[in-house]
């Protein structure tokens, strides 16, 4: 069962978090062609968020061709045969986050080697078995 990991206190709007997570799950093959996503109402009730937020995310994903609306069936995942995107495409999805991290590293005056080591460390920490949770938002 596909699970979202929504962080209300994040600077990323909730609809954008949903779009990003579904897109990544399809690219990684965790969501496959024909898989059904829970209804807008079910997602809103489960995660206690405004249904309009879910609806906005689903509409965007539909416009991008990631999801397809089926009458009476909710939203179906539309992925090409071969399951998941090629590594190159998945890397392209990672690129914006990398650029953001690179900018922050440069602004903080962190040497490239130190930044790479920190990224490696973070990757290891977020491996499955570690529950996949992101660090809770700091107050």
């Amino acid at each position: 069962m596909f699970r979202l990991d929504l962080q209300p206190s994040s600077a990323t709007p909730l609809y954008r978090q949903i779009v990003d997570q579904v897109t990544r799950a399809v690219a990684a093959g965790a969501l496959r062609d024909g898989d059904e996503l829970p209804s807008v109402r079910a997602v809103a009730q489960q995660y206690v968020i405004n249904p309009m937020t879910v609806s906005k995310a689903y509409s965007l994903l539909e416009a991008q061709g990631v999801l397809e609306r089926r009458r009476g069936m909710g939203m179906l995942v539309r992925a090409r045969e071969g399951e998941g995107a090629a590594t190159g495409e998945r890397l392209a999805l990672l690129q914006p986050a990398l650029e953001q991290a690179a900018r922050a590293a440069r602004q903080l005056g962190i040497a490239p080697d130190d930044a790479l080591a920190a990224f490696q460390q973070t990757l290891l920490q977020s491996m499955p078995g570690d529950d996949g949770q992101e660090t809770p938002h700091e107050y």
Partner: protein
Amino acid sequence: MNTEPGLGLITDAITEPTAGTDAAIVADGVTVRHGDVTVLNDVRFALPRGAVLGVVGRNGAGKTTLLRALLGLVPTVAGEARLYGCDSRALDDRVRARLGYVAQSPEFYGWLRVRELLALFGQSYPAWTEERMRELAARFDLAVDLRVRHLSPGERQRLAIVLAMQHRPDLLIFDEPVASLDPLGRRDFLRLLFERDEEGPEPLTAIISSHLLDDLERVATHLLFLHQGRVQLFGERDGLAEHLHEVVTAAPLPTRDGVLRSRRQGDGAWRSLIDDRRLALATLPAGATCRPLGLLELFVALNG
């Protein structure tokens, strides 16, 4: 199209004009004075039907007065508020029947039993049924045979929520509705807000004032920041999240369109809140760092 008069930009705040014709709530220059003190100063916004507005501000910013003015419960010295097009100071019964209000410190008749109090206020509404009342009371763990004076503060708040929602209102105004509720009670409350898909064509519109910013992040489609009785910021939640940034620079940014606030930090650096729809990020001085803001960070950037 903005058809409401005077809902354009105002000098010291950014507002996103919203379609006036379909607005559930319009504040058109609402100004309230208590003696010599101006508690609300020319407050303007229009909230479309189906929107959930989070009203945010420090203690004393005017949140409670604003909600009461929208309902016509405090006199305005200038401007007016309209609910579904009807002047708040002269609400007709048709509009009144569509409202639900949870006051910050609700006053109740302590000698009544919970079910008696709920029925007393609910009965006059067309959409009220005893079944609905009992179902809501059960969901909020209210013992309907208890006398109101024996309820705990948390139970009184749950009673206020049931009172406001038992007649299936279309427009809810909540003043700190969940401050005394535990986290699970707050979840129940938020879920209840969106349970009306089958209940009719009119979408629920709500205004919630709260210091619990995480709760607002979950449900708010629009945000209004109040500061000393003025609107600091009003707009769609997602738009604010995507277009407002905090910029740190060594020197102060020149005052210009798009720079909402600039202040000096303890370390000598300048922190500015900017709107990238009015000030392109590419034009910032070299060395400026820029980051997006969550609601709490935005609150701090505006009020800290």
